């Protein structure tokens, strides 16, 4: 069995990649993917912790988190679609009517 610590470390790496990607990429879809990466990092950590503590609640948390991530994607894509309809771009840098 894989050492939960390693999984934890991997999740930390994923989290950092996700967070880093979120503010370096312009395309909203990619940013959304980065966010998913962050959520999945948390999921992995939950799973690892569940194993570590031998507690099943962690798995429940993971399942719920996946559901949350899924609905988040659904909402996000719907919004991006609407944004594209109005702005004709989903580049985060170019959608800046509102500022200051």
């Amino acid at each position, binding site marked *: 069995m894989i050492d939960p610590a390693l999984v934890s470390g991997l999740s930390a790496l994923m989290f950092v990649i996700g967070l880093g990607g979120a503010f370096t990429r312009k395309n909203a879809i990619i940013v959304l993917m980065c966010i998913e990466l962050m959520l999945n990092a*948390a999921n992995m950590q939950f799973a690892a*912790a569940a194993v570590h503590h031998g507690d099943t609640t962690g798995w429940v*948390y993971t399942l719920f988190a996946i559901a*949350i991530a899924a*609905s988040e994607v659904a909402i*996000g894509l719907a919004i991006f679609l609407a*944004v594209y309809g109005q*702005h004709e771009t989903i580049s985060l840098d170019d959608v800046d*009517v*509102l500022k200051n």
Partner: protein
Amino acid sequence: MSNITTVEAFGDGFISALFPELMLFAGLLLLIIVPNLGKGTFRIPGTQIRLPWLLGGTRFKFTSDPRLPAWIASVTLGGAFLNVIYVFSQGLERVVIVSESGKELLLVNGFSRVFEMIFFGALALAAFSSMNRLQVKGIGSRVSEHELYNNRRQADFYILMVTCALGMSVVALAQDLFVLFIGLELASFSTYVLVAFLKESKVGVESGMKYFIVGSVASGVGLYGLSMLYLWAGSLQFSVLSAAFAESGTTALPLIGIGFVLVGFGFKVSAAPFHFAAPDAYAGAISPVAGVLATASKAMGMLGLVRMLLIVAAPESSEGSAVWLACLGAMAAITMTWGNLAALGSDNPKRMLAYSSVAHAGYMLAALTAVGAWNWDATISGDAGAAAVAVMTALLFHLVVLVAFKLGAFLVLSVLESEGGASRLSSLGGLAKREPLLAVAMFIFMISLAGVPPMAGFLSKLLVIMGIVRIAVGDMGAEIADGGVFVLADMHWVWWLAFLMVINSAISVFYYLRVVVVMFFDEPEEGREGPLPSGWQVRLAILACVLTTVFVGLAGDSLIRICEMAAQSLNYGW
């Protein structure tokens, strides 16, 4: 803590304990079903027999009324609100809902009830006042009665409102950090969509996208923090976490976890530097929604912070929590100053209110810092427990009355919006001539926001400052009476947060007053001379806000007592 009733989920007493929430659930079902009722028929497959099916088809006159969802939502939310108040007036019945395995899931007590009051009240007002002013074709268009009747998105809007309320109430009740998180996400998703609801306008979708994407990142960080806490403690039950902290709260892992969770809630309360999406979101969203963001949503974030920091991470004699105290203090200072400075030059009333809401978040964070501060300063003991209750009381009071005047201000803007936009300060021009009563209402909201007596905003700010100073002074008064000698430096440093808050209130007067000046001094914009088109609902809502603002400001004692009770019932060891 003795009189807590334990109820298993869906067991005996579950319904009576969670009656308001179940009301919301019922309302949600009605909202989904009722507007869809029509003359639709169901053809039995293979036959030509059409059975009346009632769903779909040409709608009944009754169900096709676009005001119907609004009414359902308003009645549901309002009913829940009144129910909460009723429950409150019947004395506090504390109920804890546990899972089959005995884990505490939800706790019904005064504290959660007060927050539900805030959530339901704000959302009920927002729903009620959106009834006849919801925009269809983007900011700037006027909605004819006819267009309104054909708008089927009405139902979606109010469904989201109610789900939002449901999510929030879960946050209020949660006794498990993950349950709290799920409630938070439910409410958040609803608000993301509500903000983006004006998908026919550029600003609408843009604000929605920004709010969504930034909020998602923040909640991602928060969730990761949760996972770290779980990794550390093996459970996300408040009781477990609290005990674990009391034992060994100084290690890095849980503290970093707390810090990450702070980010998640920090976004909700729009604390600097997590507030950036807020002004854009407020500016793009329709005003009642912005009002909800500024009041209910913020209260929800605040609630999370209180739960996290005070229940989980601030056990007695915990040296390590001083770290997050410093974080929080710095955040409070930066937030209030940032918000006020930014609002100072803002020409968009909605952005201005957004920044002012950032500033108010700063004040509340300062109060929270003070609550956290009483624990580890050696000179402060004595009535510090009562002092912490006092600050919590102030915090709750502030959140409650904020609904009245912050939401009220947004509702006034919403009246202007329904005429054709409220994104320039000049759109408020000459309001005093056009609608004197509306202008007076806005004036009252503004000075209340600024903290000018005798409005509720003054009392709330006073309570916060008093709470902070009380913590800072501690029991020096008693020791002076015993012959002790002190200097100013003996006071806890949170006193300087009170000082900063006072200075910030002074700065804030500037931009609030500018709104007043524009209303009472400037001429109306071209083509906006006459009285405003709007129905009675929003005006009634505004009137309610005005009355609350003034009445609470003049006689806030009973509300203070309610908040005090709530603060005392926070299930923590004082």
